[in-house]
């Protein structure tokens, strides 16, 4: 993942988003071992405290768990992955529909557009 941080939001919350996406999309597999805080921080180019804060919150959300001697792992709970997928999807959907409404498209218009887009010879 190439980290490009936006200017208007705290870095730790952007890191959390990034991890959620990786977990939801399967890039990070359930039960996969995460690198150490310091390695992750160096990889992302951020302060280790910031990375620690992000990981702590992911732990609180149940997406990641820590085993004292072995390190941190992605959750193996089947529900958790599905949950975060839905969460991210619905966030993006809300943003999207708000944007489309602004352009004047209704809900049905949107569905039409999507169908057109998915046709084999579909124009984009």
């Amino acid at each position, binding site marked *: 993942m190439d980290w490009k*941080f936006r*200017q*208007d*939001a*705290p*870095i*730790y919350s952007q890191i959390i988003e990034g991890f959620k996406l990786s977990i939801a999309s399967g890039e990070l597999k359930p039960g996969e071992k995460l690198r150490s805080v*310091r390695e992750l*921080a*160096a990889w*992302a*180019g*951020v*302060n*280790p*405290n*910031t990375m620690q*804060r992000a990981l702590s919150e992911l732990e609180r959300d149940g997406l990641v768990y820590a085993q004292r001697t072995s390190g941190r792992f992605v959750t193996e709970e089947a529900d958790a992955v599905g949950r975060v997928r839905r969460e991210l999807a619905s966030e993006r959907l809300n943003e999207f529909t708000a944007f489309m409404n602004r352009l004047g498209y209704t809900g049905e218009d949107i569905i039409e557009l999507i169908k057109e887009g998915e046709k084999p010879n579909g124009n984009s």
Partner: protein
Amino acid sequence: MATLECIGLTKRYGSTEALDSVNLTIKPGKITGLLGPNGSGKTTLIKLANGLLTPTSGKVLICGFEPGIETKKIVSYLPERLNIPTWMTVTQLLNYYQDFFPDFDLARAKTMLSGLSIDENMRIKAMSKGTREKVQLIMVMSRRAKLYLLDEPIGGVDPATRDYILNTIIANYDPEASVVISTHLIQDVETVLDDVVFINQGRIVLRSTVDDIREKEGKSVDALFREVFRC
């Protein structure tokens, strides 16, 4: 116990006041940015912490001690200018640091040097400017100090070197030590900082954390800095 504490710290040169009654506390485990335009007093503050200057009034304390031999043992300083003797070879320089700094980690230094494929028999004089700066950084970061003072560490370096420097700072993070980075190039270092201190004309103008600024002001520290210090 604060790593660095400034109490009413004032420094005057003749009629110019470089620092005016500065109060500042820096705790262990944090990477703090000392941010301000040129001539704001950043370098003066750092030199005072190093014992290179004496205060006109007020105090500066490192882990409770005034600057002296005991504090120099626990402070690692990277000045803006190249300070390593250029006639030495890298091996001689390693020997020098080992001789005088009890907290110098020779193994760590050698690892970092070989990571950059730097030949230890090479003379500093024969190296390019970028390589010399990296060697100097390696020496400073190989010390297991309690306070790291980095004065404009990424000024005038190419992006690859800049990334190397920031990665080295992150990789050497020690929860019992403090790192103070003084710079006016905020955009590049912002992601590495915990806390920020804005300084202007010898006074502390703002003290906060990177997260707080982004959450409350909705903008990056760099953007806020440009606002605060708009000409």
